């Protein structure tokens, strides 16, 4: 990796947008996919081919309504046919790593641009605050010189962001390092040697800087604080879910809308059983079940849905919390699922999204393992 400093002149979002536009102009990529301001105060991903429109890009947008990796999977499930640079937050990058391994993203023509992330707010709260997105975003980026960014009073970060211990860019062809530098003056660009040569050759930036000396310490400080917050949330979830009664209390208002699944980057199955007609029972079935059990809950099978989905995605859950954002009933899906996923990944000695090399747990096995956990003796 080589490092360059990108001068930001008080506007890190604008400086990175201009840099990305430069990548198109100099022919390094054909298109750029990045979060962009939307009417009404939101931001969502868009694919830009026209550089004159690119000032709408806000890479550090303080909201994330949809998971970027899920959208990237749309763009690059097969070869998009041209080179695209994609701006991803660390949780989106980790989801992308899982999706590459699950063969849902073809990375060949994608240039991954990853950023140190200040965190995101719930969309509704942010819109109601009336804050100007770019100004607020630049303010948050600037805070990262010394530690974790904070959202404006009364808005607050999403729960998943307040317990995120992976907010620094750890992977990617081009990484934007913000922790440990004054973002309003400059941010650091770390690029793979090959790409750095191309960027320097195109006179976009000069790779003559040292890696940020203070970044590791700042990241460590951020993670330490977040680790404590995470323990607290996980303990709360353990308390709530240690009996089925507690779980039922928390999840009884589920309307089985499947939004948590729709917004989950890991739930990629095109033919999910819960989207099929399997659970569209004839009316007589409900009547018979009520007769047999005494009472039949409606809507039925909400718990079956959550426990099944949890079993399917726990090995790859990266804790982005977009299931929380998508839930119309305000259920703590993310906190509970990441706590459970943490236990499952610990058992399998796997960390979702950490690297492209570790194989997906359900794609491999060892001959001698999990005897006690599965309950099956040796032979």
């Amino acid at each position, binding site marked *: 990796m080589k490092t360059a400093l990108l001068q930001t002149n008080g506007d890190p979002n604008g400086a990175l947008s201009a840099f990305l536009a430069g990548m198109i102009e100099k022919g390094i990529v054909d298109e750029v996919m990045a979060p962009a301001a939307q009417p009404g105060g939101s931001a969502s991903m868009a694919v830009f081919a026209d550089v004159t429109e690119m000032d709408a890009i806000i890479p550090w947008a303080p909201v994330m309504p949809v998971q970027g990796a899920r959208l990237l999977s749309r763009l690059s499930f097969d070869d998009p046919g041209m080179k695209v640079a994609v701006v991803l937050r660390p949780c989106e990058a980790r989801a992308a790593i899982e999706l590459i391994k699950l063969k849902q993203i073809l990375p060949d023509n994608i240039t991954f641009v990853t950023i140190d992330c200040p965190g995101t707010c719930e969309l509704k709260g942010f819109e109601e605050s009336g804050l100007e997105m770019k100004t607020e975003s630049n303010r948050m980026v600037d805070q990262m010189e010394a530690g974790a960014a904070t959202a404006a009073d009364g808005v607050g970060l999403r729960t998943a962001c307040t317990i995120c211990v992976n907010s620094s860019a750890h992977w990617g062809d081009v990484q934007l390092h913000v922790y440990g530098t004054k973002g309003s003056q400059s941010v650091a660009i770390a690029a793979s040697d090959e790409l750095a040569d191309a960027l320097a050759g195109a006179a976009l930036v000069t790779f003559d800087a040292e890696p940020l000396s203070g970044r590791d310490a700042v990241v460590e400080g951020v993670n330490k604080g977040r680790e404590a917050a995470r323990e607290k949330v996980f303990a709360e979830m353990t308390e709530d*879910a240690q009996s089925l009664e507690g779980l*039922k209390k928390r999840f009884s208002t589920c309307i089985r809308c499947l939004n948590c699944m729709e917004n989950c980057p890991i739930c990629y199955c095109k033919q999910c059983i819960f989207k099929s007609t399997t659970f569209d029972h004839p009316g007589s079935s409900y009547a018979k079940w009520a007769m047999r059990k005494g009472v039949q*809950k409606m809507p039925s099978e909400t718990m079956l849905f959550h426990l*099944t989905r949890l079993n399917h995605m726990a090995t790859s859950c990266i804790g982005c919390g977009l299931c929380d954002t998508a839930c119309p009933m305000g259920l703590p899906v993310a906190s509970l699922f990441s706590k*459970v996923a943490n236990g499952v990944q610990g058992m399998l000695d796997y960390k979702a999204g950490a690297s492209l090399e570790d194989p997906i747990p359900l794609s491999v096995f060892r001959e001698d393992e999990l005897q006690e956990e*599965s*309950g099956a003796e040796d*032979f």
Partner: protein
Amino acid sequence: MAQQAVTQQDFEPRIVAFLCHWCTYTGADLAGTTRQQYPPNIRVVHLMCSGAIDVVYVLKALMDGADAVLIGGCHPGDCHYQSGNYKARRRVAILRNILTQFGVSQDRVWLKWISASEGRLFAETINEMTDAVREMGPVEFKLGWDV
């Protein structure tokens, strides 16, 4: 007339058994032809491989009447499809881990390796499992109607 809540005294365990075609199902057949005795508490679902089991079937069984689920497959190294049983083992380990985190005993899900020649072991397993489940009582999901 709707069935009343099951009391501990008249509790009769209901076990759903997913058995692989090549080993455990054939082992169960052998238990029958060799007249091994085992309690009639199991309902068998015949599958081609233990690796073909998705957790949705196990969970649906547990939430809709089964007090425990048995998954029977070939011994490690003997899978007719090379590695189905190893994959089943990972899935079952994940399921048991998750059930435990929600206060459901992991002993509601049993994974056993029983070959086509082990009719006696099959009968012993069903005896052992029926006793164990009788001891545990009705599955946690049955303790309220609101799942």
